[in-house]
């Protein structure tokens, strides 16, 4: 491929960083080398991981997305996905799928003339495929082009939040913003996407990834690679190809095993489902405890009611109420009381669910099954915990009850 060493920059203990020219590749790269026991230098094999992430949260996975992501967060022992690798990967994938590279830093402040944003902007370094992969639309101006990436142009796209903050009514396209000491020309504004999980998706600024590296440097960073198949049917094949290509890029042999991870939308959904399961189990345990407490509460209320109405019970018995009649009367009251709680719970759930849905920008579904379960369980609680008080009431001696003060 024409790679050749241009020079050793750092020698640090048993490790060295080697600057490599990739020939056709547009960049010089740092390679880590290590001296082994025999004194020979060898390149430290990058162990990476690939992750798929759901980009099309709302479109129902029409364009399934595969995403290679930063290993530092969860797989610190795996090597970074290097820019060089990402470029080769993209090259090798060719037309099979839409590949985009993403790297980002949060907590940035963006300036324009006297204005500046809060230091909570996410600065994304990416390429021409980013917008499609993450379903952003350009509201004004133009998207990032492959030329922008190739020539590391000082251009950027800004999210709606930033446009409003810095330009308000002024034309943003053509303006200049500064971020971490670098000036970038605004080439386009993004259509608002609202917020997801309480996080605004419009508080971002995107620049060509090559430009981004000029700002923050390249070492110690891992690139997320997002692979988007053109249809759900091709997803499986594209996934296979993704893994194969990544192995090729890293020079991994089949017996080496993968030193990267891939995640698909499906597996993201699975992870999400697992998390949801945990939440459901947790909610179940908490509910069970709450129900027990509520049940004891119902029992207490009913016992007080029986005591307060002792004379009434005596009177009812003197008028011909049977034991069974009194028992069912008080049981019914306990169940009614519990059902009131159950219905209040459902209303509370509807209100809370809608609020949360609004906050998280998620669709709200009324869980008929759970609501039914709620009513059934509440009736059960009412019956179970109302039984003892009702039995007490029905067993009262009529004369004692009538004489009760």
């Amino acid at each position: 491929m024409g790679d050749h060493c241009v020079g050793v920059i750092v020698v640090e203990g048993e490790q060295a960083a080697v600057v490599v020219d990739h020939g056709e590749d547009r960049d010089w790269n740092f390679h880590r080398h290590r001296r082994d026991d025999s004194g020979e230098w060898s390149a430290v094999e990058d162990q990476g991981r690939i992750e798929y992430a759901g980009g099309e949260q709302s479109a129902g996975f029409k364009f399934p997305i595969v995403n290679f992501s930063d290993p530092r967060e969860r797989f610190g022992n795996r090597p970074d996905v290097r820019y060089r690798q990402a470029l080769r990967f993209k090259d090798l994938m060719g037309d099979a799928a839409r590949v985009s590279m993403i790297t980002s830093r949060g907590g940035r402040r963006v300036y324009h003339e006297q204005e500046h944003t809060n230091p909570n902007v996410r600065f994304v370094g990416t390429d021409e495929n980013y917008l499609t992969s993450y379903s952003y639309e350009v509201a004004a101006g133009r998207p990032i082009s492959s030329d922008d990436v190739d020539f590391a142009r000082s251009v950027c796209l800004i999210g709606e939040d930033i446009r409003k903050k810095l330009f308000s009514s002024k034309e943003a396209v053509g303006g200049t913003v500064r971020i971490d000491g670098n000036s970038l020309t605004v080439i386009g504004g993004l259509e608002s996407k609202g917020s997801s999980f309480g996080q605004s998706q419009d508080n971002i600024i995107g620049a060509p990834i090559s430009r981004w590296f000029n700002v923050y440097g390249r070492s110690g960073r891992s690139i997320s690679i997002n692979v988007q198949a053109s249809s759900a049917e091709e997803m499986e094949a594209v996934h296979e190809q993704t893994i194969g290509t990544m192995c090729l890029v890293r020079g991994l042999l089949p017996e080496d095993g993968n030193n990267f991870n891939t995640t698909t939308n499906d597996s993201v959904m699975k992870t999400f489902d697992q998390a949801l399961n945990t939440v459901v189990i947790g909610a179940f345990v908490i509910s069970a405890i709450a129900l027990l407490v509520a049940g004891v509460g119902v029992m207490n209320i009913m016992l007080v009611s029986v005591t307060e109405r002792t004379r009434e019970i005596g009177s009812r018995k003197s008028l011909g109420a049977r034991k069974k009649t009194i028992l069912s009367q008080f049981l019914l009251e306990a169940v009614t009381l519990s059902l009131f709680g159950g219905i209040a719970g459902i209303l509370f759930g509807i209100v809370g669910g809608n609020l949360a849905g609004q906050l998280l920008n998620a669709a709200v579904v009324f869980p008929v099954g759970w609501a039914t379960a709620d009513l059934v369980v509440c009736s059960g609680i009412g019956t179970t915990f109302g039984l003892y008080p009702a039995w007490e009431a029905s067993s009262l001696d009529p004369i004692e009850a009538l004489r009760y003060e």
Partner: protein
Amino acid sequence: MRDPGELVIDIADVTKLYRMGSEVVHALRGVTMKIHRNAYLAVMGPSGSGKSTLMNMLGGLDTPTAGYYDFAGEDVAEMSDAELADIRNREIGCVFQSFNLRPRSNAIHNVELPLIYAGVRANVRKERAMEALENVGLGDRMHHRPNELSGGQRQRVAIARALVNRPSIILADEPTGALDTKTGVEIMELFEDLYAKGNTIIMVTHEEDVARHARRIVRLRDGLIEADETNLDAPPRT
């Protein structure tokens, strides 16, 4: 002398003990009496002589410590809860000194209650409750709650409730005790009326004026029958 009706209440050697810690109270020490259908009987005696205890026993609300109670030929001690409840519901109507009305229900709903326990359908229930209220002269007070009625009217609601299931026997424990003389007289007229219609009336009182209406007077003292005599001063049968 009139031919006595069928024997409905037959008690023999009934005693009732109340244990209050180490102290034992003999409320009844061995009472024996027979009551036939369409009797009009007053139980008299000083306070604490056992009148209420006896009435509660007759009403099937209390059980004797010893002795027998046959109601219409059946041993009450052998009866189940359901059988006893049915007797209280259909055979005996109890009127207490305290009316025991449901405060938040109107007169009709109060009177309906025994019919609910008798399993009568809702529309029939209402009709019969209204009829019973009319019979005690409360036709214009049907939708009033107890706190919107006078003492005499409340007692009449309680009597209507006791009568609504058409029991043959009416047990009244000091029915005029909480009422002034005038309303007391009204209640007595009502009883006279019921007696004339063939009901059996057993009432407790400590007022000679009230007892005068009865055809038979039983006097209790310290849990024993002191006297059991025909009331010669009773008004003529209408």
